[in-house]
């Protein structure tokens, strides 16, 4: 299969807009589960408003949240796919820029020093484009994540040491969830990275925060910790928007990587309740939106 940059450009544009308007089914189901279990009156009312907002966005074809986020594209390339990598990356950037100008969308991206907004949602290193490979035959998957800033500001890294143990990893997560309170737009998905290098650990936390609800960590030790922490964070009583209740998080997700004998890094990256993402799969048969 030959990957056509023109097709990638159109898809990069479409996926950005779709991600901003349609909440994935797993997150909608997550809201239903939280509504069933929430006992706090304020918490219930806030969850109901969030669910109402999803319906209003669909009915009015509007954006779920005004924060158009930092655009992230995850490209996974399967076997027997021919592509010009540079052209594909340029196509994604153009698609992102076109979504911003043609929809139009608020450009939320500025130069980090001058704070100048080019009104394109693009800048140095943005959109983020991650390319990876998998074993699927003649398949390319593109995932678009507009990462909201309120929750992205809830990002933390601690280079713990081996003597601190896994206890300190758990303490770090609980303390950061308390510290963030309502600022990260709960109910959240708490993404936790354990191990790796400092940069890999942070990236693991982002992968965890943006993983679909219902998925579990592929490592059994990581899966055990995510189950424990998922119960624990909802005992804190922070609740929707930090105004009290059970529903602090949909779930804590953990991703792990091997690390050095001297190291015990932990990272937290939080996803807000508007946990937006859009996926499309390109095969010789056409494009399938997931």
């Amino acid at each position, binding site marked *: 299969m030959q990957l056509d940059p023109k097709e990638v450009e159109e898809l990069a544009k479409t996926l950005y807009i779709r991600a901003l308007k349609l909440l994935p089914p797993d997150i909608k189901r997550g809201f239903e589960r939280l509504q069933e279990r929430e006992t706090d009156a*304020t918490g219930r009312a*806030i969850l109901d*408003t*969030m669910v*109402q*907002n999803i319906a*209003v*966005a669909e009915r*009015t074809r*509007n*954006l*779920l*949240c*005004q*924060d*158009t986020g930092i655009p992230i594209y995850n490209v996974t390339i399967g076997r027997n796919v021919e592509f010009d990598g540079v052209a594909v990356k340029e196509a994604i950037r153009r698609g992102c820029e076109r979504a911003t100008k043609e929809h*139009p*969308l*608020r*450009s*939320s991206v500025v130069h980090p020093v001058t*704070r100048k*907004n080019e*009104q394109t949602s693009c800048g140095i290193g943005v959109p983020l484009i991650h390319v990876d490979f998998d074993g699927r035959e003649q398949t390319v998957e593109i995932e678009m994540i507009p990462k*909201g*800033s*309120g929750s992205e*500001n809830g990002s933390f890294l601690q280079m713990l040491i081996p003597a601190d143990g*896994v*206890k*300190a990893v*758990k*303490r770090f997560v*609980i*303390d950061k969830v*308390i510290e963030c*309170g*309502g*600022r*990260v*737009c709960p109910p959240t998905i708490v993404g936790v990275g354990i191990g790796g290098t400092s940069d890999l650990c942070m990236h693991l936390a982002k992968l965890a925060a943006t993983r679909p609800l219902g998925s579990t960590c592929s490592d059994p030790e990581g899966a055990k910790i995510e189950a*424990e*922490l998922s119960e*624990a964070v909802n*005992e*804190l*009583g*922070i*609740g*929707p*928007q*930090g*105004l*009290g209740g059970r529903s602090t998080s949909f779930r804590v997700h953990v991703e792990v990587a091997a690390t050095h004998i001297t190291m015990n890094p932990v990272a937290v990256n939080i996803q*807000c*309740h*508007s946990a937006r993402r859009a996926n499309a799969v390109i095969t010789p048969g056409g494009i399938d939106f997931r």
Partner: protein
Amino acid sequence: MTHHVLETPVTEAQTRALKVNDTVTLEKTLFGIRDGTLIAMFDRDRRTTFDLNGHALLHTAPNVRKVPVSNESPTGYAPLCIGTTTSQRMERFTRPVMEREGARIIIGKGGMGDQTLAAFRDLGGAYLAVVGGAAALETTWIEAIEAVDMDDLHPESLWRFRIKNFGPLLVTMDSHGGSLYDRVQGEAKARRAKILAGLGASE
């Protein structure tokens, strides 16, 4: 737990009457402001042509569409999606925006800190919580973008919105030292030791 319908601008007495857990629906006018706007106004001493005296400030930057200037869209901007951003980043600007510009109400999400609570106590103000991330719904409460100032900061301009039935909003910080955020934080911290023990992660 009283419901208040307030038409802006409001008086000091009106904001001092607001108590945590009351609800509010705002009518008439609302100003949109955020990081870039406040930095320009207070760190670079830029002055707005708008009169913010007694007004409500919404922490936001909208998605807008450029349209021909008309009675409905006097600025040439039509609102597409207007929501609320995290307020805590604007913490150090609450007192100056109340003292210099006379603002009385902050509308945001996630709450603010001690400096803001002290400014509310001293000057008579309140914080009203919107459900963050519910922007499609919030947009239906906004009738038009009436005016815009400092638009070189776009989208972090100072926006004047015409609103209708804006709310219900929850009073989460008041001028009597009340903060629902502080209460919830305090309770979470009190539960921490037991939760850590349950995780086998006590200090």
